[in-house]
């Protein structure tokens, strides 16, 4: 892992198009500003992880497919 020391208003560049700038440094957190081209998706890591975990637990087998369909029909 690359490690940098940055002060307020200082930035790092990742490749040609991504800039990460330190906007504010507080006791409990650092506020970052990110400039990236539209094709680069930027997310909080924990949000991405949550969605990934939810997706992985959502995979259904053909058996479950019928089961879910039946329960949804019954619930209506």
């Amino acid at each position, binding site marked *: 892992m690359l490690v940098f020391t940055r002060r307020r208003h200082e930035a790092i560049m990742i490749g040609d198009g991504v800039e990460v700038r330190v906007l504010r440094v507080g006791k409990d957190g650092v506020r970052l500003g990110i400039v990236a081209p539209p094709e680069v998706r930027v997310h909080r890591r924990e949000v991405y992880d949550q*969605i*990934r975990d939810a997706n992985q637990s*959502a995979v259904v087998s053909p058996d479950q497919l019928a089961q879910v*369909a039946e329960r949804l029909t019954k619930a*209506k």
Partner: protein
Amino acid sequence: MNPAPAVAETEITVSEAVTFPDGIPGFETCRSWVVMAAESATPLRRLHAMDGADASFLAIDPRAVLDNYRCELSASDLRRLGAGDNDSLLWLAIVMMEPGGALTVNLRAPIVINPKTMTGQQVLPHNCLYPLRHVLVDAE
């Protein structure tokens, strides 16, 4: 469960493969997906990966779950989908079977498909504060 409206005029059918340039989180190598009607349960769709991994999901139009469901796509989401402001997009929320037996639906990060470009992505809108696990059917 909220009454699922008989599929409205926004009904869009996709039968060919849809390209997801980034896959979806957890299935980053699955770039090609087909959307099928899930047998017998009409509001349900089945998303099946054609490459990368053997994965199938059940999904439902989030507006069939919550009438007033609304998420705004960012300009860069629209651009990735090759969509203009007025293009009709297919929205699908992934259904999950919870360990206790409940069925929940991920309204937080919907799948959005542009039928015009046959491009899709799972969006994580920053302004969309719907739950990741909205209960569709309680545990038995």
